[in-house]
């Protein structure tokens, strides 16, 4: 589905001195970063660090106050909305449905950037929709109305809709939020597979152990600034984690998963809670 790694091997996304404010509140400060295809990036950081805002800027849902984003050497501003929709997809956090479309109908809406005004799907589009349905194990639910789904099911439908868009860049805002353990592992595995096939996948998550298992690269944000970015082997260190999350951190290699295991504890207990 996603395009192969670009011949030049250069970054697909270049963030140049990116800043963003919401009224008087500064949300992102002078962020510069290059993101490459074939990698799965996880954006992590405490609440209010600006993670979701960064995703919004990458999806052009908000415009940066200063600085610029380039997608494949072209400013994001220069893309038409359809060009952008066939290059970048976003799975938003909220997955509330108001109308009783079926699961399949919602996923078919993901093909919108490639269709005409009346939204008719061609056989190729239907094949992609079927693939996504089977990848996310939604076959049993395909003809059910989305208004009757559980939280986890609805979230998988949002993801399926996003994957049906079949874009080279895929952005996900806390995609495993209401999934159970097995579903979350499956989903993160799917995302890493997409990256391995050449996509540029960017996930915002609070689950650092998930990040340790499935990410290639970690981007740490705190108070709107970039603290560190790089391969997880160099960024998932006790010192960096303690700095970003303001808690004592321990990182050890985990035989069970074959990856890293992270644990945290607060150094000082707040006095009100000691009694």
């Amino acid at each position: 589905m996603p395009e192969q790694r670009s011949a030049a091997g250069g970054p697909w996304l270049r963030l140049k001195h990116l800043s963003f404010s919401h009224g008087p509140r500064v949300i992102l400060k002078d962020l510069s970063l290059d993101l490459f295809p074939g990698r799965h990036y996880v954006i992590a950081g405490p609440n209010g660090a600006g993670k979701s805002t960064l995703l919004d800027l990458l999806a052009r849902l908000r415009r940066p106050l200063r600085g610029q984003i380039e997608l494949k050497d072209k400013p994001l501003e220069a893309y038409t909305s359809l060009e952008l929709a066939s290059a970048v997809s976003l799975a938003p956090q909220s997955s509330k449905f108001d109308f009783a479309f079926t699961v399949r109908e919602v996923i078919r809406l993901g093909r919108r950037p490639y269709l005409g005004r009346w939204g008719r799907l061609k056989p190729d589009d239907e094949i992609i929709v079927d693939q996504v349905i089977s990848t996310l194990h939604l076959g049993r639910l395909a003809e059910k109305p989305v208004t009757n789904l559980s939280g986890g099911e609805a979230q998988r439908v949002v993801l399926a809709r996003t994957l049906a868009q079949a874009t080279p860049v895929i952005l996900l805002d806390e995609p495993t939020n209401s999934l159970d353990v097995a579903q979350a592992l499956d989903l993160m595995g799917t995302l890493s597979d997409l990256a391995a096939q050449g996509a540029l996948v960017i996930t915002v998550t609070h689950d650092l152990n998930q990040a340790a298992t499935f990410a290639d690269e970690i981007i740490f944000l705190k108070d709107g600034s970039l603290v560190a970015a790089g391969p997880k082997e160099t960024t998932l260190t006790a010192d960096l984690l303690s700095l970003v999350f303001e808690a004592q951190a321990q990182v050890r290699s985990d035989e069970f998963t074959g990856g890293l295991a992270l644990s945290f504890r607060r150094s000082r207990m707040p006095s009100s809670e000691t009694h």
Partner: protein
Amino acid sequence: MTVAPPRRLSPYMMGLVLSVVLVVVAIISLASGYMSFTASEIIDVLWSKLTGSEADVAYNRAMVLLEVRLPRLATAIFAGAALGLSGAVFQGLLLNPLADPYTLGVSSGAAFGASLVLVGTMVLPWASFLATPMAPAIGAFLFSALTLRLVIALASDSDRHLSPASLILSGVILSAILSAGISFIKYLAGDQVSSIIFWLLGSFQARTWVDALLVLVFLLPSLALSLTSATDLNIMTLGFKSAETLGVNTAKVRLRLLAAASLAASASVAVAGIIGFVGLIVPHLVRLLTGPDHRSLLPLSTLGGAVLLCAADTVVRAFLPGEIPVGVLTALLAGPAFMVIFRRKMRDLIHA
């Protein structure tokens, strides 16, 4: 691959059924009343009118059909269509099951604008240039658009998010203010107040071809704007972020659809006064039967609104003693349905 769940009707079938029902109800409507006609007489008169030949029906009887019943029927059909369409667009766009021109205060805004123009032409000598059939409709459109703007501004929170409950409350607040405004206009109208009162209650009595054409002139562009945005509207029900990242310019589509819905609602109010709940009930029934896809929901709600209002007007004109305003009948019938929807959706609304 297009496996529809078994409990949904095919939109084409639904369209066919509604069209047939509309024709049947229209014929019954033309046939019944103070003067009754047979179906063959009706067809004879219509046919001879279309072909310019001589009908076998007495001249004055033919005139009753062509100049009294038919224009009234056409006005009711077009106004019903406009209300059905308007309600379906509002509900889809505002993600609100309770939205329709009436609950949003748009009808009150339109009524205020139209009565302002009407009374203006009565009491102000210099405003007599406004005494054309088009002027109240334009006044209705301007004020309905303004009302809608105010309701949305009032209901939006800091993130410009519209919760269903706050939207309806804002509609109620604006409606209350506008009702007071309308009362003031009535007071200014003095002796001529009765014509305004009757019009405001919602009625198709003594409507002419001019009225029918007027609604049509507003309805057609509204229909064109809505239908060409139907696919985008489907995507916008997924929420702002999803729609924008799928390439939909939500601000533009939203403006188009709000304009379309106001246009349709104000046309209906300008010729027929405030007729509540048609725009609320019809899209619900259609969605229940054929599903939420706006590509079929919008045209079918248009057709459904036409059927409902055509039938309701026939009942008040030909089958009920005296002639109660049709707006009273639709409110009496659809009000309880509104209560059912409200009960079913209330939990979602409070927590939205």
